């Protein structure tokens, strides 16, 4: 194979028709940039989505792809990857597509550990159907279908992913191109199901839903970038950090209350036990920063590799390798 290099434009097609300012525009650009940097050819890449605003995304990709039916993207991507393991498969869903109607496929793709890059574009609202609450909308959320506020708690995607034995979870803010490209590349490098939650704004129906981290200055104060092997510090001047506090974690200011840099936790994305990773993933304001970056990245056997290995192993053991040989494995008799 020739070592061809790619640019973002090699993955671009058409003119996106999302609302101006929609988070999908930012994410699309980051995905195309990440794909160029990853360097896998467009014809060896499939982008598969369900239904929703964000699920229009494959139409703007110069790859193979499908914009399928509501909620089924993960199941369709599963068949695609298992049947043709050479393909790099990206599955793109919104919070409704992925976690409501498609929740079952989301957890099972994680449990099976199919080598898919699963993107969850989370704007906590149904946009295409014009503004109903989603399974990630907070309790009390007022929308067209909940005029007096919702009376249910939302899913927290990381919790669902970890509960389904997920081995990779990362988070980025749509407007943060560098952060997004970084986790997409990490997702591709990870063998197995990789969930990337993208926090994004819906300018029409849920404006400001991720306001605390949408702008770079705010992210400095309200988010923490986690990097494997590095101290968990954040703040405008990296003056704050996370320390262990009994069974939990807490935010401290370095140099105050007796805390020094030595007390600050070092991130371990490769730790098989997900307890601390889950605590990090579930942090939210105002008391905690929102965790960004690769939160969990643990190696595990993938379903598609195991399928191939089993076919190879059984093939070497069995004596029949075509249809007519198969027939002769049965009890047969001759009528003369």
């Amino acid at each position, binding site marked *: 194979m020739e070592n061809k290099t790619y640019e973002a434009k090699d993955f671009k097609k058409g003119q996106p028709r999302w609302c101006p300012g929609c988070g999908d525009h930012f994410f699309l650009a980051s995905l195309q940039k990440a794909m160029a940097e990853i360097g896998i050819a467009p014809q060896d890449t499939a982008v598969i989505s369900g239904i929703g605003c964000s699920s229009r995304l494959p*139409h703007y990709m110069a790859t*193979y792809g*499908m914009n399928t039916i509501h909620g089924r993207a993960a199941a*369709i991507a599963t068949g695609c990857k298992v049947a043709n393991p050479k393909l790099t498969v990206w599955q793109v869903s919104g919070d409704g597509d992925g976690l409501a109607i498609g929740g079952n496929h989301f957890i099972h793709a994680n449990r099976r550990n199919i080598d898919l890059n699963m993107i969850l574009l989370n704007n906590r609202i149904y946009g295409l159907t014009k503004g109903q609450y989603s399974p990630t909308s907070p309790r009390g959320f007022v929308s067209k279908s909940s005029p007096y506020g919702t009376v249910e708690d939302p899913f927290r995607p990381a919790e669902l992913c970890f509960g389904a034995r997920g081995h990779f979870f990362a988070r980025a803010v749509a407007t943060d191109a560098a952060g997004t490209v970084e986790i997409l590349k990490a997702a591709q490098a990870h063998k197995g199901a990789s969930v990337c939650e993208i926090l994004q704004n819906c300018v029409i129906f849920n404006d400001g839903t991720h306001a605390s981290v949408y702008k770079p200055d705010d992210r400095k104060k309200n988010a923490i970038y986690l990097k494997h092997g590095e101290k968990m510090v954040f703040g405008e001047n990296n003056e704050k950090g996370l320390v262990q506090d009994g069974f939990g974690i807490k935010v401290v200011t370095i140099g105050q209350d007796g805390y020094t840099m030595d007390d600050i936790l070092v991130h371990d994305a490769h730790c098989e036990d997900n307890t601390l990773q889950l605590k990090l993933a579930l942090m939210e304001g105002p008391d905690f920063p929102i965790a960004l970056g690769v939160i969990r990245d643990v190696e595990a056997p993938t379903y598609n590799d195991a399928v191939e290995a*089993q076919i190879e192993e059984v*093939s070497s053991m069995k004596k029949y390798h075509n249809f007519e040989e198969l*027939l002769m494995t049965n009890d047969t*008799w001759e009528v003369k």
Partner: protein
Amino acid sequence: MTENKQNVADVNDIVVRFTGDSGDGMQLAGNIFSTISATVGNSISTFPDYPADIRAPQGSLTGVSGFQVHIGADQVYTPGDKCDVLVAMNAAALKTQYKYAKSNATIIIDTDSFKQADLEKAQFQSEDYLGEMGIDPDRVVACPLTTMVKECLKDSGMDNKSIVKCRNMFALGLVCWLFDRDTTIAFNYLKEKFAKKPGVAEANIAVIQAGYDYGHNTHSTAQNVYRIETKEKKVGRYMDITGNKATAYGMIAAAEKAGLKLYLGSYPITPATDVLHELSKHKSLGVTTVQCEDEIAGCASAVGAAFAGALACTSTSGPGICLKSEAMNLAVIMELPLVVLDVQRGGPATGLPTKSEQTDLLQCLFGRNGESPMPVVAATSPTDCFDAAYMACKIALEHMTPVVLMTDAYIANGSAAWKLPKLAEYPAINPPYVTPEMKDTWTPYQRNAEGSRYWAVPGTEGFTHILGGLEKDNKTGAISTNPENHDLMTKLRQEKIDKIQVPDVEVIGDKDAELLIVGFGGTYGHLHAAMNEMRADGKKVALAHFKYINPLPKNTAEVLKRYKKVVVAEQNMGQFAGWLRMKVDNFVPYQFNEVKGQPFAVADLVASFTEIYNK
């Protein structure tokens, strides 16, 4: 072998029904008996009748399992309405199964299982169970079967539980004696089956021999020994195959012929699960099966596999079709090859999971939103499942469309002797792949002469494209809501299906028939047998049995209009008759509709058709 026996009667065909608790091994005994018979060249047709409960309480009425086999000197078409020999391993079996015995049938019972407690569980009122059922004791071979099996194996070193498990083989031995069967075939079968447990094989063989000897020594209790001589042998190598296994084999054969990987996305459901079981075994043929999280994912993952370039299939029964219908429709609009297997069972909803009907026809034809034309192929017998599955795959791959393959619980679980096919004699399968020279001009919905879209498999350079569930522009493949384009695309999808070439429907029987019997799918055997009986009775009757449902054969209207009277017989409320009336102007047939969850009874068909005939 027949020396020393009293009355040896030559018969044309016989039906034996093995019945007992679901743990009594009736299926195995029945299977071995049919294999022995097929090996000597008899025609066979079998039908297992399972209870819905996995293990109902021992000896209870709901826990009775049966296996019926029809053996003939000539071709047999059905497992038979009623049996000539009923084996009842316990009181509950006699109570529930006697209704399937002919009035002069021989009844074999294990008297050890007709004790007070057994009779109570089977709800007999007294110890005179034969009297209660109105059974003539002269027709009964009443034998202390359990006692004799224990005696036979007392020195085997086996524990009591294992010994009692061999009861079915005693019954088999006794039936072999009744029908003058060569037990060495059974012995060889058991030696092979239990190759790794020679002790088990030996014990079973000893018990078969004991059962055979018991029949020999007490022949006065049975009136006859029957002999079924094969009349016309069709030479070749054969195996016994169930419909579900034949379906799986058809898919494997089609994948090999097309040079594609076979992918099955599935979710367990009675009575289709054996297809998943069968395909899961054959990894050495590269078959990939994924047991998905639900029916929806079974179909959706198959759509993904089809896009990725595999021969993609999904298997289910009626309730699963309900769940798959959205993904099936996705394959319609994306024009991807997909085979959807519906092994029909009793409905609606959960219905009768282990029973058989033809009530899903309209669901398969129409059960989707929008204009959603889809070819439908209905297999006509256990062995025809192979050909039907092969052709369903061929149609799907060559016409870039999902295809519904319909079978039913009756032919899926039933079996028959099957002459091993030669793949070289089956038609080639050539999907319309894109070719390198199309690179610069190709668009995703460009069509060939048959109206099929071309297949550009991911990994192919120069053909990247996006498909989807939204309507697409006929030329560019981009999303389109243009009214004229949608109208055109709707018509193009319909035309593509209408253009599929299927063989003409064959009419068998009398050319100058007064009555044409019409059916589809799994009722072929019963309708054929009914026609034969009526013709033997001097009536002019013909049968047109349909396997290709959509599109219908080109000669359909001509055939239906050729006869004075037509009766459409089906196991539903008239779905196929309705479909034919939609497609053939001024067609008003008689109808025979029965929805019992059981195969047709030939006698009922003959009675009803004769009434129509005489009108």
